């Protein structure tokens, strides 16, 4: 046991003396959370638009006022001729142009209908879509007010309610994803690098020719990173709660335990990577390419799994991050307990046991 503690002490020396890695270790989660929380977002705010209003009557003015009053749009310029629309887009100043037809008000009263054209810059399809939806919503709202005294014979009124994230905040989606990526990266990459570093330095040879047992070496490597990852997880959750105002609906204890499980899964993966790579470079490449990409692309973090082609959907099942993100979302946003996520937890647990068994089997007590 004294040997083991000596080994862990040595690992902490390594970690705390490598200032650069330490900075990455703790700087990365903060930077990522803040980036995803503030800079990278699906919501639109203050989008610049232009308006072509040839009618200039009370109805169009009313609509324009409403659009200008919403926080989503700011009216950048007024276009006077239809021919100018193209050049406005080309300059790239605005994302959308609203074109009211001639005699808008008159048509509305006389023929009971009037048209407004919404032209959007679809170089960014998501934004274009969102803009269209928002304008539609404003128009419909206005229309309803116009019709409030009129009795319409047949009417279907959809009542939508967005649950768990009523304000559709993208932060709610990013936090679980970022937390997953960071825990995976810190745990898997850092352990695999620290084990391969011993191989590269030649100190692994001495450790092998010592009474330390292989599992002691591995566990000794892993324990410091479990600590660091737990600290990281706490930092992320704190940042989410206090800076991004993300409420954690479920039990913090359950969240903590599930995080520890996922950290161990990632560490086991890191050990596995270190058994198949001889240098720190390879270990880093495998961790980045083999873990980061699938986690970003296939875990449901950014792209919904249900809209992927079938083969990718099946493939996504073997990615531990997918299950952890489901668990995180369930605890953070839905506030459910273990009774609803036991299946995902069990899958993660199974994967962990599998990875550990595999790496113990692959860990060489000799050099070949």
């Amino acid at each position, binding site marked *: 046991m004294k040997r083991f*503690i000596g080994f862990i*002490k*040595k690992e902490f020396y390594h970690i705390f003396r490598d200032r650069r890695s330490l900075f990455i270790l703790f700087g990365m989660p903060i930077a990522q959370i803040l980036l995803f929380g503030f800079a990278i977002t699906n919501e639109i705010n203050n989008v610049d638009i232009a308006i072509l209003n040839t009618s200039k009557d009370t109805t169009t003015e009313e609509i324009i006022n409403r659009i200008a009053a919403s926080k989503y749009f700011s009216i950048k310029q007024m276009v006077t001729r239809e021919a100018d629309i193209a050049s406005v887009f080309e300059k790239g100043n605005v994302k959308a142009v609203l074109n009211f037809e001639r005699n808008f008000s008159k048509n509305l009263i006389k023929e009971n209908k009037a048209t407004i054209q919404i032209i959007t810059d679809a170089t960014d399809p998501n934004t274009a879509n969102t803009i269209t939806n928002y304008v539609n919503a404003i128009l419909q709202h206005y229309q309803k007010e116009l019709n409030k005294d009129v009795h319409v014979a047949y009417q279907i009124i959809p009542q939508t309610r967005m649950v768990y994230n009523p304000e559709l905040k993208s932060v709610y989606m990013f936090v679980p994803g970022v937390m997953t990526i960071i825990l995976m990266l810190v745990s898997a990459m850092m352990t695999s690098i620290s084990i391969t570093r011993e191989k590269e*330095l*030649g100190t692994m040879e*001495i450790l092998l020719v*010592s009474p330390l047992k292989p599992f002691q070496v591995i566990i000794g490597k892993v324990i410091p990173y479990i600590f660091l990852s737990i600290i990281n997880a706490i930092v992320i959750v704190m940042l989410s709660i206090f800076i991004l105002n993300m409420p954690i609906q479920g039990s913090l204890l359950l969240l903590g335990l599930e995080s520890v499980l996922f950290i161990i899964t990632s560490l086991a993966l890191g050990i596995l990577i270190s058994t198949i790579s001889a240098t720190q470079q390879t270990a880093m490449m495998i961790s980045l390419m083999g873990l980061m990409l699938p986690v970003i692309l296939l875990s449901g973090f950014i792209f919904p799994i249900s809209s992927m082609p079938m083969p990718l959907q099946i493939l996504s099942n073997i990615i531990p991050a997918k299950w952890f993100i489901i668990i995180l979302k369930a605890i953070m946003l839905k506030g459910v307990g273990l009774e609803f996520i036991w299946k995902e937890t069990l899958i993660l647990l199974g994967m962990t046991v599998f990875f550990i068994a595999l790496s113990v089997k692959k860990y060489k007590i000799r050099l070949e």
Partner: protein
Amino acid sequence: MGISVTNISKSYKNAKALQDISFEVKPNELFGIIGPDGAGKTTLFRILTTLLFPDQGTATVAGFDVVKDYKKIRNSVGYMPGKFSLYHDLTVEENLNFFATIFGTTIEENYNLIKDIYIQIEPFKDRRAGKLSGGMKQKLALSCALIHKPKVLFLDEPTTGVDPVSRKEFWEMLKRLQQKGITILVSTPYMDEAALCDRVALIQDGKILQIDTPEAIVKHYPTSLYNVRSTNMYQLITSLKTYEHHHSVYPFGEFVHYTDTRSDFNPEDLKVYLESKTLSDIQIERTEATIEDSFMELST
């Protein structure tokens, strides 16, 4: 409690690293494995320290089989691999402390054994190992390998990359360790270090050329060896190599070591020949063979 190697062979994918190697190291002996880079020295050390399996043959270290009893060997040997395997970001003292701890001992317990060596680097004990000079790294690595009082000490090219003064000191330290009852197996590519061992094995291309005391190896040098010297070294060598009776020609410091095929060789004949090749200031004199000459002779 020595080392016994019987018919060990080891191949990598397409290279034979060791071919049918056998030798004995007696308890408390300082045994040298002498050979150039790529001769198979490191492979042999790794088999004996249980890091590699031999393809064929058996070996025992301190009475334990290297395959079956590898755990017991790992408890009772000290190993210093080719590169000084230290943690560069740990200080001298932390390195030593770490190796003491994983072997279940303390610096104080065996300080006596490493005292001579460690005392020289103790003034720098708070310095990171990565910032030490080659000679100091070597001393620290040796201290780390010794801290658990091993019965057998394996040193794989311990003097490579170390300045001549430190090399000399290092061999003196080995001699002192030997007096404390430790069996030492040391490998080196430097022929001059061979003379400091009790016995040596000359090894090349995975085969042992000869095993004997350094004195006996030199004594068994088959022919007479001559130092030849002239003002133009390059021309001297090319001229000697075209001489019809030449047996071997090797540059050796400021001289060329020359042997002749004839048993009744007269140096005057050679001098006449060299003068005809327009060489001047020619000196030819008998000299004693060194381990290097024996090695060259055996390996051709």
